[in-house]
């Protein structure tokens, strides 16, 4: 046989990520096999998806839908075979393999009340959880999706993994921010990286090139939760070392569903959802006065008012105070009932040779914001009909398809192909901080009466300056065409050697457009002249990765596992943008504009890494793993070449040791600890000095020029984070309680500080990255799963997730405090992005007139403001707790599940109330004699004290939210068979976001904020809506 050809083919396979079957065509004579069936012990029913592995080797198999498995083995001898499956206790059996013969080993697995998935995905492949020294949180997506409470990938993560903080968007299509174990980077992204089926994918937040205020999409929400089997959260450098540079903020590993050998299993699901906004938006006030002239007398068309401070000063008299809340008036409220529907069809099945999973879905979501009744009447009276955009101003349409194929090329080689396609159209209305244009801006900013008038004399019904009929004419759309594909080849030329290679691509074609037709849109600036923005961006994320793993049972006590690998990633951002201003009537393209602008932008990053990992096991209960990864990156400075990231971890199932006392109530006790390092890379051109192109208008027309832009930094290197974590896993009372407790301490050194450059230098860029800072995150995480009641008719299980995070900026490396904004600072000894302001120290109505007043004379002033800025609080929660209670009843046909979560010890900037009091002049504390002294005091401090401090608006953000409630009915199979000719039938009713049960926050909702930034503030933003869903699952 020609040995060169398979070698060549495999090398090509390594490089291309594919493995032609010929690569493993060499047949080994006298090959033996182990076969068997895995069943549920109490019922005898076959168990699919059980992992069967031969201990001390790389070989194994997964059971098919009949519980059958077959393992080919090349060397005769005595082996130990292990069976693992979620929901069951691990089992091991000894098997003697005789050359040329088939040995049979069946497993009857005993269910346990609570069990975690015994297998986790690591950078070197799948491993037993017991062997890994880190805590890896897992979310069984397929189970959660079935409860009907999620509509996005982000929903899957919210409050389901300790240490993972999710800031969700509040509109249809709005993005999400995910933080794992706090914020580590001063100036770079704190986003984790995302890996789907072994391929790095785009997970950026703020993914749009046109603005609608503060709401932006996040690319992770493109992923359809129905396609996901599980999500694993690799939390920090101690676990993410081998994922390389960029993994310091954690890794979210997504595994999509795959086929199982057996006959085709079809399933259809649909969700019908009502979306409503039940939040209490603030009431507006107006202080009416009568003066001597029209300029000093209040009217519906002017802004003349009498404020409390003016009443106290005697400069005016309040004739009356009126109030109005347009969201409570059926005629003026923009909130209606949104509607979401989705229909999904999937099939999985196959043979031992080829298994498949195919999924297709159509979904459509129409948000809850509408054109109010009064606007509709206005349009009707003017002979105008609602356009399609006005009917559905916040809309998401998405079609997704996925095909996953697993091919057994030979007993030693297999190939997994994955392909996912997403087509998505998102329309977002102007919202949040969009100035005059924003829907929420106009809700928060309206006067305290109904019949205010615009410049044309039209009634605004309490809207500030523009109403939805005009605002919705701004057409902001985003189209996404996305393909995520990967191929993974596995080859086991020897029992002890496994080779794998993965090649994948995440391609996104994104088109952002914004259009104001001629004479449309609110009359602000030049908008009514018409404009069109059309930006087209392509994102390419390539992953090429190859590794070899050698496994050897050295002797009865010691085992060894060595993995050697290389990885290359390449990301490309490639954008062409164009804008056309001043459109003629009817024109909707840039081509028709009188003024045209164009731009292009490119960004490319490449990383080449290699790693080696060595694991040594002792009697299958102590596992010590050491590894090192080296990376080079195109963004490192010229004077910096290679970075090395080490890792060391240990896992010890101490309860299996003879010396360990055996208690009846303790089933298993495992100690684990890990240390590791990882990094975050700077941007592509952060290291180099450069000029930028510009142009100016001269007498002879426009001429191109050049301006100095960036100083660069030739010493730039990646930010380096090291982390130590330690903890234990324990199972108690016959596996009724399963506990994982973890302590972590993460330190980011060489933290990239975006060092502000002094303005006097005159550089184009305002800052330069320097490796200066040090940031520390530490805390505890706990996950407790319990079964309190378990009987044939009644079950009660409780899941508790809790975490703490203490964040501290240890050092800025000699750089002055970083003033991020008037309220946010980075100072040594305090959390990143901390809230700072001159404090409102006290207030007292000294003269007893019922009005809090400021006076320059401290003896007369009724407010006391500190002289310097002080730290007011953390921008993200220090404590997070989620509690899920599940009840099964009526022969477990019904399951009721409820999730309540708490976030605490942090501050939220009630910036909406700030602007109402200090700029919109419609808040209670400014006008209403019945307002509290505190409301008045913070207003006076912001308006009249020389400091203009807004400290009074930075409030406790703590809250308890009733996040999810669902009731599922799993119909008897005979019902499905008899009435629907199906295999299974389940119906679920679910509600997401039932409301805030408790909070100290005085604003509309402590989670009412936009989707960008590491210190979210509520600035004229919508609060989270409620999703009420009816879901049907039908299997056939």
């Amino acid at each position, binding site marked *: 046989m020609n040995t060169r050809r398979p070698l060549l083919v495999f090398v090509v396979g390594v490089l291309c990520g594919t493995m032609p079957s010929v690569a493993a065509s060499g047949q080994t004579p006298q090959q033996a096999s182990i076969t068997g069936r895995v069943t549920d012990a109490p019922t005898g029913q076959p168990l699919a998806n059980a992992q069967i592995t031969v201990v001390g080797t790389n070989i194994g198999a997964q059971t098919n839908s009949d519980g059958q498995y077959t393992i080919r083995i090349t060397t005769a001898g005595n082996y130990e075979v292990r069976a693992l499956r979620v929901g069951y206790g691990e089992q091991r059996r000894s098997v003697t393999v005789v050359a040329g013969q088939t040995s049979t080993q069946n497993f009857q697995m005993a269910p346990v009340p609570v069990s975690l998935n015994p297998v986790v995905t690591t950078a070197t492949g799948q491993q037993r959880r017991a062997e890994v020294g880190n805590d890896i949180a897992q979310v069984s997506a397929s189970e959660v999706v079935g409860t009907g409470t999620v509509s996005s990938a982000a929903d899957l993560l919210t409050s389901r993994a300790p240490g993972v903080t999710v800031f969700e968007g509040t509109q249809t299509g709005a993005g999400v921010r995910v933080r794992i174990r706090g914020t580590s980077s001063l100036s770079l992204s704190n986003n984790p990286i995302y890996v789907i089926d072994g391929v790095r994918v785009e997970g950026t937040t703020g993914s749009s090139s046109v603005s609608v205020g503060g709401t932006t999409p996040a690319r992770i929400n493109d992923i359809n939760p129905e396609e996901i089997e599980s999500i694993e959260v690799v939390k920090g450098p101690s676990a993410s070392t081998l994922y390389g540079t960029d993994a310091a903020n954690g890794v979210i590993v997504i595994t999509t569903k795959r086929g199982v050998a057996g006959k085709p299993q079809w399933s259809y699901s649909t969700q019908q959802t009502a979306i409503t906004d039940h939040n209490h938006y603030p009431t507006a006030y107006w202080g009416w006065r009568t003066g001597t002239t029209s300029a000093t007398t209040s009217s519906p068309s002017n802004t003349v008012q009498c404020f409390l401070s003016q009443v106290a000063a005697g400069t005016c008299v309040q004739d009356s105070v009126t109030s109005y809340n347009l969201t409570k008036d059926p005629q003026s409220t923009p909130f209606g009932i949104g509607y979401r529907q989705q229909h999904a069809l999937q099939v999985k099945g196959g043979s031992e040779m080829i298994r498949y999973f195919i999924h297709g879905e159509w979904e459509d979501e129409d948000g809850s914001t509408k054109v109010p009744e009064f606007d509709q009447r206005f349009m009707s009276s003017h002979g105008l009909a609602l356009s399609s955009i006005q009917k559905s101003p916040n809309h998401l349409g998405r079609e997704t398809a996925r095909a996953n194929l697993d091919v057994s090329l030979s007993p030693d080689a297999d190939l997994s192909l994955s392909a996912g396609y997403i087509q998505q159209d998102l329309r977002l209305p102007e919202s949040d901080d969009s100035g005059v244009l924003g829907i929420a801006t106009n809700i928060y900013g309206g006067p305290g009466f109904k019949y205010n008038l615009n410049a044309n004399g039209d009634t605004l019904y309490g809207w500030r300056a523009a109403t939805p009929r005009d605002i919705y004419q701004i057409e902001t759309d985003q189209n996404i065409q996305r393909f995520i594909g990967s191929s993974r080849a596995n080859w086991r030329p020897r029992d002890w050697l496994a080779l794998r290679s993965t090649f994948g691509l995440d391609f996104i074609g994104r088109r952002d457009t914004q259009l104001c037709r001629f004479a449309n849109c609110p009359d602000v600036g030049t908008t009514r002249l018409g404009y069109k923005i059309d930006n087209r961006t392509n994102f390419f994320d390539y992953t090429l990765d190859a590794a070899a793993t050698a496994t050897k049972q050295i002797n009865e006590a010691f085992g060894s596992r060595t993995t050697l690998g290389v990885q290359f990633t390449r990301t490309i951002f490639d954008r062409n943008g164009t804008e056309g201003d001043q459109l003629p009537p009817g024109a909707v393209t840039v081509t028709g504009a009188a003024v045209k602008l164009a731009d292009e932008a490119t960004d490319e990053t490449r990383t*080449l890494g290699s790693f080696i990992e060595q694991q040594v096991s002792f009697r299958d209960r102590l596992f010590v793993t050491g590894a090192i990864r080296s990376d080079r990156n195109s963004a490192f400075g010229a004077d910096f070449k290679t970075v090395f990231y080490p890792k060391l971890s240990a896992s010890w199932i101490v309860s299996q040791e003879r010396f360990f006392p055996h208690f009846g109530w303790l089933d298993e006790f495992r100690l684990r600890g890990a240390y590791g390092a990882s990094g975050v890379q700077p941007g592509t051109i952060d290291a180099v000095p450069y000029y930028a192109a510009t142009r100016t208008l001269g007498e002879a027309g426009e001429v191109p020029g050049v301006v100095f832009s960036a*100083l660069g930094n030739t010493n730039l290197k990646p930010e380096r984070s090291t982390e130590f974590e330690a903890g234990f896993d324990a199972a108690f009372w016959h596996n009724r309680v399963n506990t994982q407790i973890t302590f972590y301490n993460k330190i980011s050194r060489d933290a990239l500080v975006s060092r502000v450059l002094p303005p006097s230098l005159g550089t184009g860029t305002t800052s330069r990255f320097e490796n200066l800072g040090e940031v520390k995150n530490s805390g505890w995480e706990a996950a407790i799963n319990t079964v309190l009641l378990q009987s044939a008719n009644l079950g009660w299980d409780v899941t508790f997730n809790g975490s703490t995070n203490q964040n501290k900026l240890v050092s800025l490396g000699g750089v002055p405090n970083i003033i991020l904004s008037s309220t946010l600072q980075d100072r040594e000894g305090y959390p990143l992005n901390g809230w700072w302001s001159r404090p409102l120290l006290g207030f007292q109505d000294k003269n007893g007139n019922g009005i809090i007043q400021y006076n320059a004379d401290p003896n007369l002033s009724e407010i006391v403001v500190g002289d310097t800025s002080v730290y007011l609080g953390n921008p993200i929660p220090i404590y997070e707790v989620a509690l899920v209670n599940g009840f099964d009843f009526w022969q477990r046909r019904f399951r009721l599940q409820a999730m309540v979560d708490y976030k605490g010890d942090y501050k939220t900037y009630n910036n909406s109330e700030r602007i109402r009091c200090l700029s919109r002049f419609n808040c209670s504390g400014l006008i209403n004699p019945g307002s509290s002294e505190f409301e008045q005091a913070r207003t006076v401090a912001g308006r009249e004290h020389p400091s203009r401090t807004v400290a009074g608006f930075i409030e406790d953000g703590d809250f308890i939210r009733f996040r999810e409630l669902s009731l599922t009915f799993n119909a008897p199979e005979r019902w499905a068979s008899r009435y629907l000719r199906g295999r299974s039938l389940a119906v679920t009713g679910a509600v997401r976001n039932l409301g805030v049960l408790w909070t100290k926050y005085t604003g509309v909702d402590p989670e009412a904020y936009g989707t960008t930034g590491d210190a979210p503030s509520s600035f004229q933003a919508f609060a989270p809506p409620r999703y009420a869903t009816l879901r049907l699952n039908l299997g056939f």
Partner: protein
Amino acid sequence: MLIKHRLATATLGAALLVIGCVSSDRILSVEDPDIINPADVASAAGANAVRIGAFARLNVATTGTTSGSDEGLFLLGGMLADEWINGDSFIDRQAVDQRVIQPSNSFLTTADRAINRARLSAMQATVLLKQFSPSAPGWEAAEMYFVEAFAENLMAEDYCNGLVFSSVIDGREQYGSPISDQTAFTIALAHVDSGLPLITGNTTDDLRVEYALQVLRGRILLNMGQSHYAEAATSVAAVPTSFKYQLLESLTTASNVIWSLNNSNRRYSVSSAEGTNGVNFAAAIDPRLPVCQGGDATCKLNGVSQASRDDLGKPFTVQLIWPTAASPVTIISGIEARMIEAEAQQAAGDPASAVATLNAARTTVTGLAPLTDPGTPGAEIDQIFRERAFWFFSTGHRLGDLRRLIRQYQRSADSVFPTGSWHKGGNYGGDVNIPVPQAELNNPNVPAALCTDRNA
């Protein structure tokens, strides 16, 4: 079996070979097309491109905007003085209007960066022109000295003592140290004097740059005190009254920022007798400063249909000197030369000549009646400064003038700056200049106090 063993060994070898590729620089080499490398400007064409870039920088620092919302010192200085009142909800803009500025003020930091960018670009262009384009017309390098000196003088007029001029030479930062405004005027004057001798021709460009430098020289000398007034008048004597040095605006480069933030975005409103002491700009009905009230017939004709400011307040007074986004702005003129002469004449004890000079300038505008000598030195100064206020509305003169009234004419701050009740509540503060921005603390030579003092 043997075959497979060899195959596995070879495969491992291949994998190691791939790992060996880690050392390859080629794989990691990335070209970014968005940037221009320093080597690309090391030529005559490159020097010329940097020269043009300096104009773009000066434009954005003074009269233009590429974002539609970032203003420079012309507007912010005018709001700290009495030209503009605030019309929006941004605290940092309101603080400027109210004269209670914090060094962290984001708008002023942006403006400070912009004016320093103009200064740096001009410096770099001067160096590159000398090195790579020695045969270029002298006015080109002279005009770069003009840009540099204009920026330096404007900063000295507006900022507190303790301002800083840093630079970037050969790609390396060179941190400056705090200097007084008087020192800054001296530096600006030196740059003007470096530029003037470079003009040896008599072309339109030569004359344009020469006149601009001469007027700027007079302006700087005026700032330096009464002892320099005579020299200032001499410097500008040759400049014709009709001379204008303009920055051009367009929708595709930089649009007129005054139009953008007043007429279009309604964040600024022309003031009228702001804080008791302010000039009645809006009410004066002066043909040099045509205005309309938002939503009235005149405003609607000029495309301004809204009746109120961005904060929905009134008055919303709209200037019509620059009625479009593409209206050019005169930043140096022959009129300024005449005003310098008039002030020097008054200081020399010749008020009649001063009034005559003022009236000669007024004849260039239809509808301006001649002035008469008010009879007292104080009133004469008031008259000259009022004339300057209308001639140079929102072109970066007014804040410097109010400070000169304090510094050179011994007026109190409370008699020249807006004072008393601020129009949005509370009272005016005491600021008479712009502080060095907090971001300048990243300069190792700058003390924590930033400003040496906050005097006029």
